[in-house]
């Protein structure tokens, strides 16, 4: 039960996969999470970390019509978020708004802003414009990439452009480059594809199979982190797609999610199906020394694993850094347990 005492816990009623940091909430450290229950009524929880950082408080509880497979909070409006949901065979994606004065209502209902209903196959995820107020939204289904134009006041969403990645590729997830707003990376069965949104064309690909999740480094440009089923975690330089810059051991089983810290350079958090969350330090600012250090056997390097949080009973699928307090992250295991931890004790001394 390593590090078990440091975490602040919160239990959801049902199983859950996704948690998102509410970026637009500058006053509190809060997270949104949605449940995944096939037969019961699913819920979206708005959780807030108490000012002392010792307690997780449920700020809002909203019912959601279907089980939630993906949830993303709007970066400019704390009340808006998107979900990807399913019911049996049909999948859908929608943008929701938390009603004003939700705390005073007895059973608040989510207001639907827009339904992203142009998809013909299973929707995988919805990406918001990385920072600031912008109307662009991306949704990814198994074969297509959609660029939406969202008007939150008029509550409409229109497809701006759309492109098919091909039947065979079977897209799984994606990430929007915070340094170059024209680029998104999409993961598919056999590679990570880089797309240019202006031309809606593929500009490059990393041939790495079984990538589950990608994330861009917020601080360092051209840096992409991937999490793979078996091969662990890799850090790539987008200018050289042949070989990874850093190869991290990852997890005992699949590495499911990977998230770069929005503030600290090279801090990477990964969650895996071995019921663990690992905190890595991918040698920040040492791009040049990385190849050299590879000449030495890996153990020669400074141990990149800062800490492994293993106080989970099930696979961890949800992971989110707090952008307000970047030393805090929230993790969500399949059994519906949210754990918020502070990485402060593990930060390298500067």
């Amino acid at each position, binding site marked *: 039960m390593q590090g078990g005492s440091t975490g602040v816990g919160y239990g959801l009623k049902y199983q859950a996969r996704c948690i998102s940091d509410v970026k637009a909430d500058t006053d509190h450290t809060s997270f949104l999470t949605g449940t995944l229950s096939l037969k019961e009524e699913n819920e979206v929880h708005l959780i807030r970390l108490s000012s002392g950082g010792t307690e997780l408080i449920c700020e809002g509880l909203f019912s959601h019509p279907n089980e939630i497979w993906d949830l993303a909070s709007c970066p400019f409006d704390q009340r808006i978020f998107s979900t990807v949901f399913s019911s049996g*065979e049909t999948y859908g994606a929608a943008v929701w708004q938390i009603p004003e004065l939700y705390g005073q209502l007895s059973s608040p209902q989510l207001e639907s802003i827009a339904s992203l209903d142009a998809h013909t196959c299973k929707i995988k995820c919805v990406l918001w414009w990385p920072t600031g107020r912008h109307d662009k939204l991306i949704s990814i289904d198994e074969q297509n990439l959609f660029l939406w134009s969202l008007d939150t006041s008029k509550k409409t969403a229109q497809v701006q452009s759309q492109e098919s990645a091909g039947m065979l590729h079977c897209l799984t997830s994606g990430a929007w480059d915070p340094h170059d707003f024209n680029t998104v990376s999409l993961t598919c069965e056999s590679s990570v594809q880089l797309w240019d949104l202006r031309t809606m064309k593929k500009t490059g690909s990393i041939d790495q199979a079984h990538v589950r999740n990608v994330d861009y480094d917020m601080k360092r440009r051209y840096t992409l982190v991937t999490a793979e089923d078996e091969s662990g975690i890799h850090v790539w330089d987008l200018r050289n797609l*042949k070989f990874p810059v850093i190869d991290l051991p990852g997890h005992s*089983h699949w590495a499911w999610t990977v998230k770069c810290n929005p503030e600290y350079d090279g801090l990477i958090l990964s969650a895996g199906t071995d019921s663990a969350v690992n905190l890595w330090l991918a040698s920040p600012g040492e791009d040049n020394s990385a190849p*050299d250090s590879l000449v030495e056997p890996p153990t020669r390097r400074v141990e990149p694993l800062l800490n492994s949080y293993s106080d989970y009973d099930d696979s961890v699928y949800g992971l989110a850094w707090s952008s307000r307090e970047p030393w805090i992250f929230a993790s969500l295991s399949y059994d519906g347990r949210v754990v918020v931890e502070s990485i402060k004790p593990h930060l390298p001394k500067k």
Partner: protein
Amino acid sequence: MEVEGVPLDDKAKRMRDLLSSFYSPDPASFAPSLPPNTSSRFATLDTINTTSFDADQYMNLLVQKSNMEGLLHKHVEMAAEIKNLDTDLQMLVYENYNKFISATDTIKRMKNNIVGMESNMEQLLEKIMSVQSKSDGVNTSLFEKREHIEKLHRTRNLLRKVQFIYDLPTRLEKCIKSEAYADAVKFYIGAMPIFKGKIFSDSESIQARAEAVMLLKQLDFPVENLKVKLFEKLEQFLVDLHLESPSRGSISDSASASAHEASICEFAEAVRAYKVIFLHSEPQLSKLAQDLVTKHFDATHQQINKQVRSGDLLSILRIIWTDVLLMDKVLPEASLTDFALQSARVAVKDYISSVFKRLLLGVSDVLMKFQVTQKEGIEEDSSLQATLEASKEAVMQGSIDVLLEFRQLLEDNSELLLKLRDSTTDWVQEGFQDFFTKLCNYFLLLSGKSNAANRDLSFMEGIPGDKIVPALVLVLAQLSLFIEQKAIPRITEATSCFPGGGTRGFGYGPAFVPAEICRIFRTSGEMFLHIYIRMRTQKISVLLKKRFTSPNWVKHKEPREVHMFVDLLLQEFEEIRSEVKQILPQSLQRKHRRTDSNGSSSSSRSNPLRDDRLTRSNTQKARSQLLETHLAKLFKQKMEIFTKIENTQESVITTIVKLSLKSVQEFVRLHTFNRSGFQQIQLDIHFLKNTLKDISEDEAAVDFLLDEVIVGTAERCLDPSPLEPPVLNRLVQAKLAKNSDLSAVSS
């Protein structure tokens, strides 16, 4: 006889006729006889002497023609004739017999004569030989003298010239005194070409050339002018000096060695002479001497590149050192010993590194061979093990051989090597350190853990562009372990008794750090094991992914039999097992049995709860259901699925099985099932439960994971009502029967 009218003049004629008839059987040749067919019609009494004589016809004719008296007369005549013929015949026979006897006698005599002839001939040959050898002897004995005479003659000529030259000054003086200037100039000019010719002629040895220059100098000839040309000659001499020849495996060849020695002596003498003759020529001479040494070492480097053995290298170095000492005596200004020492340092270092490079290539060859045979699909049962053994051998025996070579180098007592001993020890240690680091890097490269761009392994050409076969990673894992546990201690032991060492500065410590190398190989050995497991599970994941993504689970049809992916999965496990069994050791104690596994009891305790929950899931409320799951999880201990991987067959197989089952669980969680889909999974898992027992050691964990898969499916199922146990068993039995049928057919 005359009666017959046959022309018989005398006895001699008759005799001749008889003889000729005797010797030539052809009657026509001697008797001008009648044609045989005429005998009957024109029958005469003459036919008696022909071959066609018919006695009856003759009698009839005789009787018809003659009267009684005539007949009687004829009778007498004939009787006499017959008598005559008889004696003739007798005589003839006697004569011939006589001739035969004399012929026999002659032959006998001839034979006797020939027997003696053979020995005579041999004698003759001998004599001729001896004559020849004697003439040769005379020739050779005379030849020496003749040579000597010729030499003496040449010497006399030379002496005369020398005499002339020695006399020259006096003679010139005399001439000047007597004011015969023309004569003086003539003499002087006459003397000049002698020296010049001597100096520049190629036939003269450099030593002779040096003497000539010396004489010229005595003549106050401006020798400096000649300097350039002379040095050119000297350089040419160096170029012609075949330094490569003595070292090319013919060290024992004393002839070439002595020839080499002689030419070096000559060179040394020349240098000595020039040093005296030409002032300030030392730098140039030093340069030449250094060129000689450089040339030597160039040749040595060539030898090193040709994979010379240390013994040969030693003798080469020894020759070089003698040469250097010789030169040093003549020309101490060149400080050749230092120069040679520097070069020798480089050479020995080069040698050591080349030896290690070869060692590395040897190891990589073994591994590459396996990779190639695997790629080409050549299946051999023992190949995996054989490769492991071969690579172990390559590392171990190779290192020992290398050590022996170096030992030879270190134990040599020549001055040069004594001076280099400390550094050599360091280099060998450095070499080992470098070798093992490189070997480890090479392994990493092979396993695909690192990329070639970051490596200084450019000499490795055989890096496969395509993926390495997993079995080879397993070999690498074992090889790393072997190096860590066996090879390194052995080499450490061997190197520790090396003399000298420690010339490295303080704070560096010894170059070869066995502990570090051991650590490197231990960690990479573990890593290779991980990589192997990862490669294997990756393959299984692809299999599972296909299985779970292709069907529409919400519209699944009722399960009729165990799905074939189970077969594929088991086949994969079987393949892994066969690979692992070949080269991994068995674990000493059989761990994770039900009795001592702490997770098992809790797992079995939770089972009834689960099953209970499954059956009641339709009726019970969801809240309590989830509560129950949580409760169950609270009560049972956390199942340690991901245990540390050990270097044993059981551990590796069990880990792969566990990881694969965990993957199944994760895949299941990503889908939504209808009742039939759930039942299909239930059936497949149930079948696996029976079969995996034989494969995996950690039964508790496997059971736990299999249960987790079913629970996970039930959670993702719209209508989780499980198959009745009898149906389940029947289908499993059907599958087992089918499998055994198949195996019976195939075997």
